[in-house]
């Protein structure tokens, strides 16, 4: 059923990601880990066409962009990972004519059933975030599953029961958790760091949040660093005189 579940109930789980734009270094490890995991799991395969040729094209569920932001002393480059935001008001779900696209009531994850998707691509038109990628060879739409085949997988070690992208991030810029729980670590992180929604004006109410880059001006110490001690005449010790002699001779 492509009508959306009611997510306003208190205690409603909203699993999602919090992405720290301050610490992301743009290494693409999350994108590669995502591709590696999902090409053998739920969505297998994530097709690549002409992978070693001149004009490759393939399905990835996570893309890392690079942007320049600001001017003057506050200007900076920002690495910007982009994947499905598992919106509460997910138009990609409601436009689906077959019910293949759905949002789970239990945890809010948005999924595509690859067995009933007809490949009409309308969900990708309805997504403002460009999060869905059509698999031209499979003829169905593919998207981030928040690694449902990892996060509930009892066969994995507890520390591995999180999305592949989060597990792979070397700087800890990606956080996974329940954003419906106000006391969860991710919710606290969002309130402490001023986490924000992408394009809130469109009303999709994304679950994933982005943490803004910290201001470099604020982060910089206000006191100038203490000056280094000047190199003056030495203490006249034997060792120092020896090295002074060596210095002159050389």
């Amino acid at each position, binding site marked *: 059923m492509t009508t959306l579940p009611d997510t306003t109930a208190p205690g409603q789980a909203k699993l999602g990601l919090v992405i720290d734009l301050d610490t992301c270094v743009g290494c693409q490890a999350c994108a590669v880990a995502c591709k590696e995991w999902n090409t053998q799991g739920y969505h297998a395969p994530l097709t690549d066409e002409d992978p070693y040729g001149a004009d490759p094209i393939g399905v990835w569920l996570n893309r890392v962009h690079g942007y320049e932001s600001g001017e003057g002393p506050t200007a900076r480059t920002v690495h910007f990972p982009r994947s499905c935001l598992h919106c509460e008001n997910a138009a990609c779900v409601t436009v689906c004519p077959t019910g293949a696209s759905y949002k789970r009531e239990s945890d809010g994850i948005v999924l595509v059933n690859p067995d009933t998707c007809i490949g009409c691509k309308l969900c990708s038109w309805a997504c403002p975030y460009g999060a869905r990628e*059509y698999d031209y060879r499979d003829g169905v739409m593919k998207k981030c599953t928040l690694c449902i085949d990892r996060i509930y997988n009892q066969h994995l070690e507890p520390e591995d029961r999180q999305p592949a992208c989060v597990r792979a991030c070397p700087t800890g810029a990606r956080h996974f958790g329940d954003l419906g729980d106000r006391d969860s670590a991710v919710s606290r992180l969002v309130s402490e760091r001023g986490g924000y929604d*992408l394009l809130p004006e469109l009303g999709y109410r994304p679950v994933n949040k982005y943490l803004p880059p910290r201001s470099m001006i604020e982060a910089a110490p206000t006191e100038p660093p203490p000056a280094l001690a000047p190199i003056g005449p030495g203490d006249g010790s034997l060792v120092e005189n020896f090295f002074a002699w060596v210095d002159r001779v050389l």
Partner: protein
Amino acid sequence: MHPAYSVIMFSTLSGAGYGLLALAALAGASHGPASSFAFGALVMTMGLGLVTIGLLASMFHLGHPERAWRAISQWRSSWLSREGVMALVTYVPAMVFGWLWLDPASPPLAIRIAGLMLALMCALTVVCTAMIYAALPTIRQWRQPLVLPVYLVMAVATGAALLLAIATPYGRGAAVLAGIAVLALLAAAALKLWYWHAIDNQPRDLTIGMATGLPEPVRQWEQAHTARNFVMQEMGYHVGRRHARRLRRIVVVLLGCAAILALPALILGGGIGAAVAAVLSAVATLAGTLIERWLFFAEAEHVSSLYYGSARV
């Protein structure tokens, strides 16, 4: 947006088919049985044929056409699903109306009820088609109040031009039909000019800064990937925009020529010259509609192109 040829063929041909069926249905509702079996059969065959070819063309857009039957299940939330349901349901009043209309002995009241039902269902199906686009918040050029009237009037214009082309050789009601065709064609051209004026003068108020939430000015300095991907191909189509101005003029000129070519039928009410002109009028209308639909896609800018470096949409 990348122009999907199968979808363009679908909305053009099915729109023409529903316009033709609706006008035939209204003619039957007001005038009773078809003037001749051959004329009525030709109109119904052409109307249902265009609708069916259009629906089959839309299947080529699907990655899994064999699963298309599933698309009628989600009518509660999806305009595409509603469109599919309405397209299938409309076959029923079309068959009933055709059966009654072609039989000279049918009671006029039955034809009237079936005709009004068919005209209403045709209109609702075209409304569903238009709403697939007009309901998407992600594409400013589609989420316009004028999209719905444009689809409806274009369907009437293409249907009227086709009905005129079929009716003029029979010399039956050609003058009235030509009048409807001329009015619908001029209304279609005027609505499209209004629509283009509206989308040109609306500010592009979503920026790359808003999409990323970063302090302005924001610009892309590094692409996420060196090769193309689905989002760039599907949402980031730029080819058509370069020729948009010229193509818009061609659409208006074609619709205008179609209106002029309907004038002989309006003035003479029949004859070989008027019949040839009416056929050419229908051809010009269909050609103009195809280009208009292509532009509808090519000029549409998707919000997600902001993440790929568009400054604003």
